[in-house]
């Protein structure tokens, strides 16, 4: 279970990115995080994985208040969460295969396990052919899919994806959503920040809308817009 309790985040430059937000996400839920550009979606995600410190409030992940986590414990938190970063964050000196394998290497997984698991997830995101390429040799969408593969490779109990389909064509986006749906059905909690209104509207999952650092909507089976205000 993930719980944010009265969480606020003010950046060093004075910008208040989150203003006293509270949110409960049960194990196995599938939550869309939506909201306009700069609303605070990525900030929520970064607090969950301790990329930023929380200013006030509590964040409880799997029973532990991570705002009080010791530095040495952070890597273990991050391993239990698979994250698709909005800016991909691939290691430029590693091939696609090595980038995905790296997420397993840090857990000290066995060589055998790595050799078995990595090709499977690369296949899932349709990158088997690109496994020996370096990130700079990939298209934008291919890089994004490497990031998705890496987030899934350890079979984390929580998967957080920040705008994971921003560089993918509609078909590929649907493939990825199917994948997310599958692992969600197997019990993985999924939190996905997205701007893709088609996806949100068709998936009919829980929708949490952030606006200017506060949660303005939280619907069990919501659409991208609250009351049919279409474009």
């Amino acid at each position: 279970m993930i719980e944010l309790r009265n969480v606020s985040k003010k950046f060093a430059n004075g910008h208040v990115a989150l203003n006293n937000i509270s949110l409960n996400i049960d194990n196995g839920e599938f939550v869309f995080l939506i909201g306009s550009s700069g609303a605070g979606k990525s900030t929520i995600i970064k607090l969950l994985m301790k990329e930023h410190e929380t200013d006030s409030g509590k964040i409880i992940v799997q029973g532990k208040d991570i705002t009080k986590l010791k530095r040495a414990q952070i890597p273990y938190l991050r391993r239990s969460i698979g994250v698709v970063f909005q800016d991909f964050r691939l290691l430029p000196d590693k091939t696609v295969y090595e980038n995905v394998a790296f997420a397993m290497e840090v857990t000290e997984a066995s060589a055998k396990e790595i050799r078995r698991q990595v090709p499977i997830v690369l296949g899932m995101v349709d990158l088997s052919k690109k496994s020996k390429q370096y990130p700079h040799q990939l298209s934008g969408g291919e890089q994004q899919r490497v990031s998705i593969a890496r987030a899934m490779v350890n079979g984390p109990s929580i998967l957080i994806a920040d705008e994971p389909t921003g560089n993918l064509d509609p078909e590929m986006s649907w493939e990825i959503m199917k994948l997310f749906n599958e692992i969600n059905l197997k019990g993985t909690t999924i939190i996905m920040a997205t701007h893709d209104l088609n996806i949100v509207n068709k998936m009919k999952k829980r929708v949490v809308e952030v606006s200017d650092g506060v949660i303005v909507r939280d619907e069990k089976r919501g659409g991208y817009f609250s009351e049919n205000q279409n474009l």
Partner: protein
Amino acid sequence: MKIRTSKFFIREGIGSLRKNKTMSAASISSVIAALLVIGIFFIIVLNVDYAASNLESQIEMMVYLQDGLSETIIASMGEELKSVSGVKDVQFISKNQALMDLNEKWGDNAYLLEGLEGDNPLPDSFKVTLINPSEAGSVALSVSSISNIERVVYGKEELNKLLKATYILRVGSLAIIAILIFISVFIISNTIKLTVYARRREISIMKYVGATDQFVRGPFIVEGVLLGLIGSIITTILVAIAYYYSSNFIKNQMIGLLSIELMPMKTVVSSLVLLLTVVGILIGIVGSLLSLRKFIRV
């Protein structure tokens, strides 16, 4: 830590050296350059010290004997002198020998000695060399208590000057090598800092996907060791070659010039290997770890 992880570190460390060619070349060659400075200076200091010791050991003490002693007495006096603590060697110089030496030494002014041959005023003497020239005073005291000795002369002032000169040489060269080692260490660790800085983003990405500090450090340590090792090996080879040629040059130039000898190649190279390898590897590792600290905290 599993064996597998260490293997991963080694593979990664080597891989990183190979993949970042520009950076590896720049940092290894900076390490070599910095170690070269240490190496050159180390050799100079070794030789200065060696020369200073040589000069010091040439300091000698003259023990002049009373006139008309029998050969047996002289012989037993020689034995007695040898047994004095602090004495390295004793050599007898007869009064005739002394006159001949003087004749030779004075060269152009030797005509002043003409006529002395008949009535040689010079005494018999022992030339005493000392283990440690700075003990000359106490040795002289012990020696003068031996009977039948006229005078003990050891150029107190000359000795003091020499000791002072070698002292300045030693302190000076040690100070300079200390400064140079400091500078080199500084340059190497700065170089490493820059290579780590160039990879700060990668370091943070590793942390973001769940790597522990130790896991990020591992490959850098391996890389540091390799950097130091490669740097020190190449430097040692360079210095050895340079020493070979320049010592030949100096020897040729100095034939019969000064009583200064150069240290043998083997001694120099073996101490160099040790010094440079230790310095190189240590800085490689410590430099990496220190530079990482800032970027690993994400």
